[in-house]
């Protein structure tokens, strides 16, 4: 089908959303433009290159690690006769609710020097465990707490696979391993790529885990530039490098996804497939799932529960925790709802009307997710005090900032769902005389609804634990669970943060459950 011109309204809406989402990138450009030479100095320092290489190494290792964990877990929990596989499906998705700064801290508590594990092995004569700090710790923490970003879409894609393809391959005499490699994996590429992209971008922008693990990544460098040298130009220049890195990752992903069609060509329905028998691999498979769940979920949650019981023993007031939980819920729900509406405009524009403009709109929108929260927050301080002063530091402004930060999380699943809707259905509806908006409402929307829900859930999960923008932009006195955790930890009372941290996990669990159950099923 030749590309059509998008309806003006859609184009305007898409460009508006994309433009708003690109505000952090625009802010960087404005900041750098004033001091181009010192910005260039900061970028072309020898040290910048070193940090960049280290960061690239971490991003690659975390992405590969996350895919390496997620694809087998997805396959085991969707396609095999793994015992209690529905339970495993939920448990293996849950580590996503653990904020990286909390997860990293808990890993250090368990595996760090004088941590719980050290105490356990000391009687065995092991005086000092290999240090968890540095690359290994950062890699471990980020891999363990982000792999569900790959797991969720891959599970969805596995469930949507057309069994006819595999049956056809089997009928032609291919062996199971061969079928997996030649038929199943290629079908999973968009899901793996999309999830891997989110993991990579998250790793680029993460500050919590790398600072606790003392790994000097690009984002940590940006924080140091703001917090120690007060050098906004240097920070902005480094942020711009992150935007470039993000554009490279997006281009890679676009090549991977290519111009292939992933929807059915002919009529037919997706029907459930028979489970593959694990046979003697059952025990190793269970052990694999068990180890992942133990380290990424049971260990952190167990420590938090233990600390919480100690706090409760001290007679801590729970009233403020309930209020803060309400605020977190409010902000995250609003951001999720608005994010889905905005992401729909962008996704329809880019998937149905591909053009240089729509590609630019989509890619610049990812800047919010690839940049550290502090940059996104300061960019909205900049614009807020200049063009929207009455809204500055109101709830509306905070929700807007968080939506900008996490919009790409909703664009991804919506775009993927849209890709699987054959354009011919929409064309048929138009052919029958429906207007474009009507077609979207009656035909497209119901088909991509689950993609929208998945997007909303992803935005919610991230928004509920957001910190830097909340500190800078929330109305004064507006406390969330994340600011409460920050309050406690910045005073050095990590254990006191255990209760708000646990409540945070509880709030995030239901949307996550929805996400792991529904994935992005579009049938």
């Amino acid at each position, binding site marked *: 089908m030749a590309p059509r011109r998008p309806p003006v309204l859609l184009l305007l809406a898409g460009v508006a959303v994309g433009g708003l989402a690109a505000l952090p990138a625009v802010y960087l450009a404005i900041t750098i433009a004033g001091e181009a030479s010192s910005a260039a100095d900061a970028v072309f320092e020898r040290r910048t290159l070193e940090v960049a290489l280290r960061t690239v190494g971490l991003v690659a290792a975390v992405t590969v690690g996350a895919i390496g964990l997620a694809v087998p877990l997805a396959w085991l929990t969707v396609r095999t006769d793994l015992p209690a596989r529905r339970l495993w499906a939920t448990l293996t998705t849950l580590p996503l609710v653990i904020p990286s700064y909390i997860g990293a801290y808990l890993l250090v508590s368990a595996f760090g020097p004088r941590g719980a594990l050290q105490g356990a092995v000391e009687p065995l004569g092991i005086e000092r465990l290999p240090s968890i700090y540095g690359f290994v710790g950062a890699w471990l923490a980020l891999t363990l707490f982000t792999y569900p970003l790959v797991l969720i879409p891959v599970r969805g894609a596995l469930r949507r696979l057309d069994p006819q393809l595999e049956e056809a391959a089997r009928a032609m005499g291919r062996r199971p391993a061969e079928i997996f490699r030649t038929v199943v994996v290629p079908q999973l590429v968009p899901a793996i790529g999309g999830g891997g992209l989110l993991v990579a971008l998250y790793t680029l922008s993460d500050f919590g885990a790398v600072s606790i693990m003392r790994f000097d990544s690009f984002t940590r460098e940006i924080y140091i530039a703001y917090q120690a040298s007060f050098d906004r130009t240097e920070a902005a220049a480094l942020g711009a490098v992150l935007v470039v890195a993000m554009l490279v990752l997006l281009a890679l992903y676009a090549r991977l996804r290519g111009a292939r069609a992933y929807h059915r060509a002919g009529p037919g329905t997706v029907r459930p497939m028979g489970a593959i028998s694990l046979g003697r691999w059952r025990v190793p498979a269970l052990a694999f799932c068990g180890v992942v769940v133990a380290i990424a979920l049971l260990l952190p949650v167990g420590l938090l529960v233990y600390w919480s019981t100690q706090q409760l023993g001290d007679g801590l007031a729970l009233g403020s925790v309930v209020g803060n939980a309400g605020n977190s819920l409010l902000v995250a729900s609003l951001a999720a709802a608005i994010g889905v509406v905005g992401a729909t405009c962008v996704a329809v524009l880019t998937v149905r009307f591909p053009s240089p403009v729509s590609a630019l709109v989509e890619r610049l929108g990812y800047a919010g997710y690839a940049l550290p929260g502090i940059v996104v927050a300061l960019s909205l301080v900049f614009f807020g005090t200049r063009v929207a002063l009455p809204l500055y530091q109101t709830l509306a402004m905070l929700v807007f900032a968080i939506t900008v930060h996490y919009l790409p999380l909703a664009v991804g699943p919506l775009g993927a769902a849209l890709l699987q809707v054959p354009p011919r259905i929409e064309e048929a509806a138009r052919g029958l005389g429906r207007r474009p908006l009507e077609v979207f409402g009656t035909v497209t929307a119901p088909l991509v609804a689950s993609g929208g829900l998945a997007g909303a859930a992803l935005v919610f999960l991230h928004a509920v634990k957001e910190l830097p923008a909340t500190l800078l932009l929330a109305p004064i006195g507006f406390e969330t669970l994340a600011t409460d955790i920050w*309050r406690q930890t910045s005073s050095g009372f990590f254990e006191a943060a255990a209760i708000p941290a646990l409540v945070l996990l509880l709030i995030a669990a239901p949307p996550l459950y929805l996400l792991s159950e529904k994935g992005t099923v579009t049938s």
Partner: protein
Amino acid sequence: MSRHGKLLLALVLALPAVVGGACGSSEEPGSNDDPSTPGITVYSGREPELIVPAIDMYEDKVDRDVQIRFGDSATLAAQLAEEGDNSPADVFFSQDAGSLAVVDGEELLEPLPRDILERVPARFQADGGDWVGVSARSRVIAYGTDVSREELPDSPLELTGPEWEGRVGWAPTNASLQGYVTALRKVEGEDVAREWLEGMVDNDAQAYESNTPVRDAIAASEIDVGLVNHYYVAEAIAENGPDYPVRVHFPRDDLGSLVNTTGVGVLASTDDRAEALGFVRFLLTPEAQRYFAESSKEYPLIEGVEPDHSLRPLARIPSPRIDLSDLSDLQGTLDLMRDTGAL
């Protein structure tokens, strides 16, 4: 629009309303914002735990509300710089002199009247009188009680000796350590500072995120000594009792036990100058100063208020006389720290 479309739309629109309704009563943002007594807005880089009780004291006294935004000092300084003249803040209360000097450098602070400046020794305020110190802290060597006192060095510069290899903790990303290195450059010169940093890195000094983990690592015998601010140890002893296994050593030589300050300034863009100045005056009353001395174990700065009895008097702490505003010159420090691998 079909039933499905409407349903989806209703769902999306209803979600926040339902949630908002459910928790609308939990905590109204700015609910203490009574329009009849509009209060000032304070950006505080000092932690809530410590500041909220002090603000409560002030509110009770003047019967006006104070709005406080918390964050870390440097981030708030960056935020103030981005906000410029449109800042909603009236007062900036900072954890360190450096952040204040940055905001001052953007010409966002206004000079304080003489009656305020006179309350605090000149070494704890800005040259132009744009900000004033509120409380002071000393940079000390904290040590575990299983380290013998004779072994402790007379100068922090001696921590690069082979006997300290792998035993020292510090927080190189923390503003207070960077302020210390800046002071070292100003007082002893670039070469001494470089040599010390290289020595610390070569000596396998253990890097932590901030002062608290350094102290905790000493308590856990992970390391033997560490460079921290005095009150981290004083607080822990007050909380855990005299058996807490960390003590404070005040080195005498070179930079000794450098004394630095927290401070406060009034934004030039304030729309309630009188009230903002009233708040600054309150922080320098005996009542507020006593509160800081007792609760956080910092040194009070006005005459007539004594520090906690467990502390060595401020006058007896060996510290070079330097202009604290100079400590905002952090760029050179960062370059040096990166160059030597300390950062």
